[in-house]
């Protein structure tokens, strides 16, 4: 049914290619490199925090490490890895030959490289040291690396926006015949919801960063307090993007979970429309809550309560998603392969992040725990326990599609076990440290928090080790893993109906879709037929 794919040399991954599949893999590999860089920084931070008064790392070096650990992990790992997954899968899931603007797609990847180099180069001229939040006036007087950091984040924002223009246009104008919006796979739905957030929130951060860069380079007075500059203004500009950013970073991972659960439970996703609508609800609500990061700052006290309410409302669509996933696997025939394990891990760990998010939304509690290790634990449970576990699940699930090979199941399970234990061990103790009085971003701490920090560091080291089986598996299995066949998981979404890896133009004839993406258990239903010609076999 599918033509033999011409042998493509791996060299295509190193040059300018407009094939969305090549660009997808370029995103995945590049972001993984930065994941290791960010992870190394985390390792140094946790080694320093093994003892309350350790002098292994100087205070200045520590501030630079924690600033860039945050920036690298958020802007150079999570955003690009999810963009890579979206790039590879959205055209395949909707039956298109490529993205709507292939050249723009290649450019949005190739902006990532200078941006990443700029951020790493900042270490040679004195790296940024005002936290990934770069609060003014501290970030105005910092070393030159802060300017490089700002330019790097502007480039990344531009790349992210270009990607979103591509995703929205592709999903709206290039869906295959019969693939209505209510038959769109949930991963593509999540990319659509994410792109709306990217396009509306990123430009405001770009404007803010431009102001910081001008204050540092040209001597404008936007954030000069003696001249009347207002530090709260920067916080508003920053958080207007940076809270939607955390939804940008979790929605695609949620989309991946919505794809994996039906396949490994052999059962249709429960409440497809409610999940799709929840993605949009989270996306739009996400734009109205940013100032819950500023309850303790000098924001207008009258505005605090409305932000508390809108933040708490977001727990409802998130709850709908989690309960829908539970209902999906209820009564299913669950196969605990690695993608399913990570998807289950996502739910159990993201839940802890989500619940503590409601604690942080409650103003009186937030006034105590804001900017403490309670927040550090919360953000790592939603971002590492959540997004990264989701990204891992997606990597394992679509690995046969991208490479045509099967990964080693045992190594996958080892990676899951180490990752699950490591995450809980690393971040649960931080909740307690935060409640008891340990502030955030400190190079030394009160001796009463020693044991909690040692536990956390132990967890972090386990996480560092847990990446090894993943790395080995991904590389070695691609070279000589067993052939996976075209649809090893017997999934029904369109991207699995062609050959694996798919031909350069994805589908020989434009596919015609005749029923939903998750119609498991229907006796006569065939998987989404890729094209009329194949209807006969």
């Amino acid at each position, binding site marked *: 049914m599918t033509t033999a794919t011409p042998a493509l040399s791996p060299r295509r991954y190193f040059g300018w290619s407009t094939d969305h599949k090549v660009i997808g893999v370029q995103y995945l590999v590049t972001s993984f490199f930065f994941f290791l860089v960010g992870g190394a920084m985390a390792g140094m931070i946790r080694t320093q925090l093994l003892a309350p008064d350790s002098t292994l790392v*100087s*205070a200045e070096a520590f*501030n630079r490490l924690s600033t860039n650990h945050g920036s690298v992990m958020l802007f150079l790992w999570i955003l690009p890895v999810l963009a890579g997954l979206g790039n590879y899968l959205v055209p395949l899931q909707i039956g298109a030959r490529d993205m709507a603007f292939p050249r723009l797609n290649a450019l949005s990847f190739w902006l990532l490289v200078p941006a990443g180099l700029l951020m790493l180069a900042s270490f040679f001229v004195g790296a940024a040291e*005002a936290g990934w939040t770069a609060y003014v006036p*501290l970030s105005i007087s910092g070393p030159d690396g802060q300017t490089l950091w700002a330019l790097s984040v502007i480039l990344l924002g531009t790349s992210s926006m270009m990607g979103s223009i591509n995703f929205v246009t592709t999903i709206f104008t290039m869906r295959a015949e019969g693939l209505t919006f209510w038959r769109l796979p949930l991963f593509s739905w999540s990319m659509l919801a994410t792109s709306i957030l990217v396009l509306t929130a990123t430009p405001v951060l770009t404007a803010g960063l431009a102001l910081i860069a001008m204050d540092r380079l040209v001597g404008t007075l936007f954030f000069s307090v*003696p001249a009347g500059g207002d*530090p*709260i203004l920067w916080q508003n500009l920053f958080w207007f993007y940076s809270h939607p950013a955390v939804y940008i970073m979790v929605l695609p991972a949620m989309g991946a979970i919505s794809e994996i659960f039906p396949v490994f*439970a*052999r*059962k*249709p996703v*429960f*409440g497809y429309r*409610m999940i799709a609508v929840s993605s949009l609800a989270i996306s739009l609500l996400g734009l109205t809550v940013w100032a819950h990061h500023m309850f*303790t*700052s*000098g924001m207008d006290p009258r505005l605090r*309560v409305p932000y*508390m*309410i809108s933040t*708490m409302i977001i*727990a*409802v669509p998130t*709850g*709908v998603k*989690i*309960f*829908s996933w*539970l*209902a999906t*696997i*209820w*009564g*299913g*025939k*669950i196969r*605990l392969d690695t993608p399913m394990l990570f998807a289950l891990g996502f739910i*159990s760990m993201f839940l802890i992040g989500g*619940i503590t998010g*409601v*604690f942080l939304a*409650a*103003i*009186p*509690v937030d*006034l*105590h725990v*804001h*900017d*403490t290790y309670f927040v550090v634990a919360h953000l790592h449970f939603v971002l590492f326990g959540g997004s990264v576990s989701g990204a891992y699940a997606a990597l394992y699930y679509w690995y046969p599609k991208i490479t045509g090979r099967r990964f080693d199941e045992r190594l996958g399970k080892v990676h899951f076990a180490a990752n699950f234990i490591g995450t809980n061990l690393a971040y649960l103790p931080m*909740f307690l440290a935060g*409640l*008891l*009085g340990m*502030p955030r*971003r*400190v190079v030394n701490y009160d001796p009463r928090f020693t044991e909690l920090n040692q536990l956390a560091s132990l967890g972090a080291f386990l996480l560092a080790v847990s990446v090894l089986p993943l790395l080995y598996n991904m590389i070695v299995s691609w070279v000589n893993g067993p052939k996976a066949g075209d649809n090893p998981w017997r999934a029904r979404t369109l991207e699995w109906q062609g050959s694996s890896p798919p031909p350069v133009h994805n589908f020989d004839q434009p596919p015609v879709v005749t029923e939903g993406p998750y119609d*498991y*258990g229907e006796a006569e239903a065939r998987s989404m037929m890729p094209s009329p010609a194949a209807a006969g076999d």
Partner: protein
Amino acid sequence: MKERTLLVVVLVTALLVVAGIWVAQNVNLMPAEASTRAALVDQLFRAMLGLAAVIFLLVEGLLLFSVLRFRQPRGDDGDALPVHGNRALEIVWTLIPALIVIVIGFYSFRVLAASEIREENPLVVNVRSRQFAWTFEYPGTSVISSDLHLPVGRQVRFLITSDDVIHSFWVPEFRVKRDATPGQMAELLVTPTREGTYPVRCAELCGVGHAAMGLSSRVIVESDEAFQAWLTQAAALPADPIEAGRTLFKRYGCPACHALADAGAAGVVGPALDSLADPNGPHAHAHGGMDIRALVEQSVLDPSAAIAPGFADGLMPKDFGTRIPANELAILVDYLVAQK
């Protein structure tokens, strides 16, 4: 079959509620309660913890149960039943979380309002932060201290600001923090309820000394008598004028910017003040017919009037006029003028 599932649901719900209540009453993760606000916040926190326990046990329990109960039977590659949705169930699990969130929101609002009630005649304390130290000033007295002393039971009205970057004044045992933003004065109301010594933390990254700043100052909540005693002792001056002058020189933070061997000060931001009165000493330029005592007093009250060559204007605080009572100013100026 219907009754059995109903029974199971009721049983599980009862179990969860009991677990939630047990957690709310027995699990305490917070430090000591040392303010009226702390008591209120801890009640809210424990209630939310109980609710969180219920939700956590429910979801993780369902997850675990499903994984065990609905494992794929060996050799059965078929699909499960094609269940696409259940309108009633979806409505329930949208309304219940919405209800929970509304209750928590309302409860939080009431706790917030209750913790910001103004009592009359609060003790006003100025909290000044700079890179990398806290300074607490007691208006109406000349007391400036790096440790915060508070009488128990009396509401404190903190007026918090910063001289350079953003810091954040946080006392974990009081359960509250407020950012010290430069160029702004933030107000914070706290009523200490438990005597003891508690740490003062800095909760906003403010530079290389951020961690040190969070380990340097303490708040000492004590009885009113002890507090008054401390206040008078801190305000007291040694009898000997030179000794008193030296104490005031240190108390008002002059050593941070000025060097003066007599007071062991080594600041470099402002000019050294050794041999200030020597007409042909380093400060000869400024004399210009002015009486040296008038010049020194003017430089304290209005620093920009005469800037020593090689030093920048605008660095020395301009508010000493309001902060230093007249009698203390006289002692300080006499002390400086006495530097030969």
